[in-house]
């Protein structure tokens, strides 16, 4: 029932319900009442991580391809921004203008994603995870050991967003709105395209690749195109990430962070593009405030336990918990209404009898 609604609404307009409208209003008004820390470190960072996780949800939730290399794709875009644009380290920094750097970085990331796809799409399940994990590990060690282009262990610092319209885009509110616009755009794009011919075919390939071949689809090509599109999303998020941190180093593309992305996507829920953002908010909040709950050495345990509980009790993540709660509430309300209507129905003939 839920999946049906999520995937098969016929237009975006019909999907406008009070809940989403409240969410949009909240997101737009958020900087008006939140502190700079909450706008930037919590708000903008959640949106960036959510967007990277969205690129994974698109591949895994709709296409059945679990890739651990999504952070690597984002990281490459970040590195390209530092290499082609400006940085303060004195290595590379070709000084290209932002309007050239940013598209080239995103496109470069998307092409790298195509490469990841091309070597992994003929595999299924655990083997896809292993191959993409190997790529992520290889990229991590490569940038750590390559000093000529990637400046090795240190990486790059002083990577700044451009000043456009006289705004410093790394200020909390402007950066938050920039991130919100881009991540919101990708969210809507994925939501819309999930019902497009390509989106449907990707879900069908997830359900049954063999049958899709028997219907005339080039399954391999479809999967690679999906990697390209998800690369555009991850690449854009990578550009935002390097602007957010102002720096990028091998640590930014480490395996621990790559796994965080997987955790965010799974915990959020992969049945709907809102899942990765819910997961990201939960993750960022826990990452920042678990320390307040328990002493410094143990906060990772709290995060781990929280996610273990979510995955144990709701295989479809926080989104699944929310959907079940809502269904229960609805069922309860409908049952009460039915009961009321039932009583009314019994009373009516009685009244009419009295009248006669």
């Amino acid at each position: 029932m839920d999946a049906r609604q999520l995937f098969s609404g016929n237009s975006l307009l019909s999907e406008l319900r009070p809940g989403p409208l409240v969410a949009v209003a909240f997101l737009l008004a958020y900087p008006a009442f939140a502190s700079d820390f909450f706008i930037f470190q919590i708000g903008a960072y959640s949106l960036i991580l959510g967007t990277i996780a969205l690129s994974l949800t698109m591949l895994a939730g709709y296409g059945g391809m679990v890739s651990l290399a999504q952070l690597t794709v984002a990281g490459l875009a970040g590195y390209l921004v530092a290499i082609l644009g400006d940085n303060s380290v004195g290595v590379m920094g070709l000084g290209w203008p932002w309007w050239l750097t940013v598209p080239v970085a995103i496109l470069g990331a998307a092409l790298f994603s195509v490469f990841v796809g091309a070597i992994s799409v003929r595999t299924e399940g655990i083997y896809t995870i292993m191959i993409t994990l190997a790529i992520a590990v290889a990229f991590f060690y490569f940038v750590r050991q390559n000093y000529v282009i990637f400046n090795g262990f240190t990486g790059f610092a002083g990577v700044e967003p451009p000043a456009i319209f006289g705004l410093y885009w790394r200020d909390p509110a402007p950066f938050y709105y920039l991130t919100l616009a881009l991540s919101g755009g990708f969210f809507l794009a994925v939501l819309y395209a999930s019902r497009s011919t390509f989106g449907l075919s990707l879900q069908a390939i997830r359900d049954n690749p063999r049958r899709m071949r028997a219907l005339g689809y080039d399954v391999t090509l479809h999967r690679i195109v999906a990697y390209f599109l998800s690369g555009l999303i991850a690449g854009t998020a990578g550009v935002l990430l390097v602007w957010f941190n102002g720096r990028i180093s091998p640590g930014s593309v480490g395996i621990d962070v790559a796994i965080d992305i997987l955790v965010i996507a799974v915990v959020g829920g992969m049945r709907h593009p809102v899942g990765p953002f819910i997961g990201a908010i939960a993750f960022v909040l826990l990452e920042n405030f678990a320390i307040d709950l328990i002493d410094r050495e143990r906060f990772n345990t709290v995060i781990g336990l929280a996610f273990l509980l979510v995955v144990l009790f709701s295989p479809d993540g926080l989104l699944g918990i929310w959907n079940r709660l809502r269904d229960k509430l609805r069922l309860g309300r409908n049952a009460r209404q039915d009961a009321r209507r039932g009583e009314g129905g019994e009373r009516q003939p009685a009244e009419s009898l009295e009248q006669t």
Partner: protein
Amino acid sequence: MSTSRTDALSRLQGAGRFALELEAVSRHFGALVALADINLTVRAGERRAVLGSNGAGKTTLFNAITGDYPPTTGRVRLFGEDVTDLPVHERIRRGLRRTYQISLLFDGLSVIDNIYLACRGVSRRRFSLKRPGRDDSAFHTAETLLSAVHLDDARDMLVAALSHGQQRQLEIALALAGAPRLILFDEPAAGLSPTERTELVEILQSLPDHIGYIIIEHDMDVALRAAESVTMMHNGRIFKEGTPEEIENDPEVQELYLGQGHG
């Protein structure tokens, strides 16, 4: 045996006359020989039944034709064109379709979306990021097919929620989508009720003349009513070919079938 006609001459004329030509097709799985030296021609528009006990190689034959499991040796020609080295989807785009013994459907999608994708598979704009509109031609074809297999009531249901019989009907709808010329039906009646079987035969008989098919079927009633010629397989080889009457009255076939308790 008519298969000896698979020679140079018939190949020259094959483009218009033969939907399918198999030439010395074999398929091995390790040491197991699932298909041995199959020579088979099916005319365009011909309706043929393939009979045989379990393990006779019927489904393997289908897999070799579609390319799901390409033949180990031998050649496969579709409508006169050698497709032996082509991937599955390229063969499908040349007019070949198949159904599966165990329904292979898209469980997470609605019935109409399943049929829509089948219609889209052999046409352009497979990669469109636009939602299909009401005026989309593939969408119209899908609606027509939906009625043709009597699934109007289940239009927006998820495939996972369909009954077995409905899934079998959908299986057939997917194979009928997009101007097929030769369809391979792999036990389409499996698990169907007598009424559903009658409906199935009606659907098969109502197909336009230019659509040929090969049907694997254990139910002799269905097979013999839906086919004009019969190929009998045994142990990965072609055992007998002929008209339904010839096969039904053949003493060797009777012995084979009765001997295995099929009656």
